[in-house]
């Protein structure tokens, strides 16, 4: 359980943040400049807040009421900085070993061979950081943090400085480390697809304050938070399992509490948990079950909320089984179909809209 409750003034900016979570991956989500990095800096011990308390499990790192402050070198928190911050004068190998515990008898739980193999670092060991690509630097930075045997890993925008292909590459490595090492992760991000793919719990940060926190599915399906998560990107997240693959058409059928979704082929075994993000703009509504349609995914549900907004476009929330979806329709459609809360509706989702960026392996 990580609990953070800190107050700090930084110029005209005021940080006043409080959240607690025991999730394996906690995402701090918000736009740039919202104070996310200040929060992880305080958790790592790189900066000291004016007031508050920071604790992880049994250990209290900071408590302003008792004037307790643990310096960063005694926290055992791995911190992967946005731009990697490899030591430029040391080789990759020496960077990796920098944080290795100095006590010879303490047998490391995370051994270097495993990390080097996981992150594909073997060919890079003799190089200097200046000779690495952005993605390679980030992988070395992650490896270096892991080998310091941390109890908690902080990833500050680990993908922000990378281009598309490198992003996908490093994202895959982060997924692997999440699955292979039982180290809780705090992920700082302003990119929704990363958060949805990696995190369990999401803490929304705006202007130094927590505007909402909860499971990724819950937060994503809340209509009132759509502006915070981004207009264009707004959408819900559904936890599913792979039910079957259709090799002939290269499709995968995913089941969840409210039914099933057919999506383009997903690289996962039958039975595997898969998280799907469905953007609100990809969901249409019908009051009767449509016939003769090219759309695969027709889900029966109940309309539970119509976001009260002026303007031509309205977000509505539909509960399907235990999952929630958001649909974005025009206000004219709401009136034309006389949609009301509590009413049964059919949500239509095009399979094609679920590309590989919308699907994550949970």
């Amino acid at each position, binding site marked *: 359980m990580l609990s953070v409750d800190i107050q700090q003034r930084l110029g005209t900016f005021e940080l006043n943040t409080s959240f607690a979570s025991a999730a394996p991956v906690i995402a701090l989500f918000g736009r740039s400049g919202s104070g996310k990095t200040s929060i992880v800096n305080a958790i790592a011990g790189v900066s000291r807040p004016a007031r508050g308390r920071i604790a992880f499990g049994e250990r209290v790192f900071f408590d302003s009421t008792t004037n307790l402050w643990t310096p960063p070198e005694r926290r055992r928190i791995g911190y992967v900085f946005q731009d990697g911050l490899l*030591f430029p004068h040391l080789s990759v190998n020496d960077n990796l070993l920098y*944080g290795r515990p100095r006590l010879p008898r303490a047998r490391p739980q995370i051994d270097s061979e495993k990390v080097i193999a996981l992150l594909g670092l073997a060919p890079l060991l003799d190089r200097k950081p*200046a000779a690495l690509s952005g993605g390679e630097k980030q992988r070395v930075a992650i490896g270096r943090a892991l080998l310091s045997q941390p109890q908690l890993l902080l990833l500050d925008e680990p993908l922000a400085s990378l281009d598309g292909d490198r992003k996908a590459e490093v994202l895959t490595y982060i997924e692997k480390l999440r699955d292979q090492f039982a180290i809780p992760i705090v992920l700082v991000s302003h990119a929704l697809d990363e958060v949805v793919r990696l995190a369990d719990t999401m803490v929304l940060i705006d202007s130094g304050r927590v505007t909402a926190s909860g499971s990724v599915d819950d937060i994503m399906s809340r209509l009132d938070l759509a502006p915070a998560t981004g207009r264009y990107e707004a959408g819900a997240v559904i936890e599913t399992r792979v039910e079957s693959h259709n090799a002939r058409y290269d499709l995968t059928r995913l089941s969840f509490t409210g039914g099933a979704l057919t999506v383009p082929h997903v690289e996962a075994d039958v039975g595997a948990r898969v998280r799907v993000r469905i953007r609100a703009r990809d969901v249409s509504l019908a009051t009767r079950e449509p016939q003769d349609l090219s759309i695969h995914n027709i889900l029966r549900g109940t309309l539970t909320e119509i976001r009260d907004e002026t303007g031509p476009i309205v977000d509505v929330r539909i509960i399907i089984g235990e999952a929630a979806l958001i649909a974005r329709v025009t206000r004219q459609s709401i009136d034309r179909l006389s949609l009301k809360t509590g009413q049964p509706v059919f949500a239509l989702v095009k399979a094609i809209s679920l590309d590989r960026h919308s699907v994550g392996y949970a």
Partner: protein
Amino acid sequence: MSSAEIDVILLSLKVAFWSVLLSAPLALITAYVLARKQFVGKILFDAMIHLPLVLPPVVIGFALLMLLGRKGPIGALLDQYFGIVFAFKWTGAALASGIMGFPLMVRAIRLSIAAIDTRLEFAASTLGASRLRVWTTITLPLALPGIVTGALLAFARSLGEFGATITFVSNIPGETQTMPLAIYTYTQVPGAEAQAIKLCIVAVLLSVAALAASEWLNRKADHHAQR
């Protein structure tokens, strides 16, 4: 070259070597403080450090003579309790040239420390490194090009030191007569131009060598960081 001239050159090198070696740690600390710390009176402190660069060297020499001469307030104490005497000794020449070269060394080191991304030190501390280990494994190696450049500049400056040295420790052959002082002496003696010119050539060669070495080390450090 006569053995007297070789002695002059060796004495100059000895004075320069010790002046650099003993002022380097102090210059490192001063440079670190100036590069990283904010405190009341920093501007004044900075100006004090730079004084030898702008003051006439004879002023520094005279001040040293007043303070550290056998009768001076500090000199008398050092002599009485520690048996350390600077006046009219080669150690005094090393002290005088160390002071004259100090601002050059501080400037070079300060620039290289200021160029270090302090977040690298944070990164090291999150990896479990104590402050001492951060200093010795991150800060110091990254500042090394500046330290070497500063030391070589101060070394070259020491070889050329004249005014403060002659004022403080006088011009004693075999004890305080470094190259510039010997050249000056030869120019005052009719018919000794040949000796003066020989020493001038040696002075030029040594200075060029020191500057070339500092440039070479700088390039090597750059290359090293990029490889």
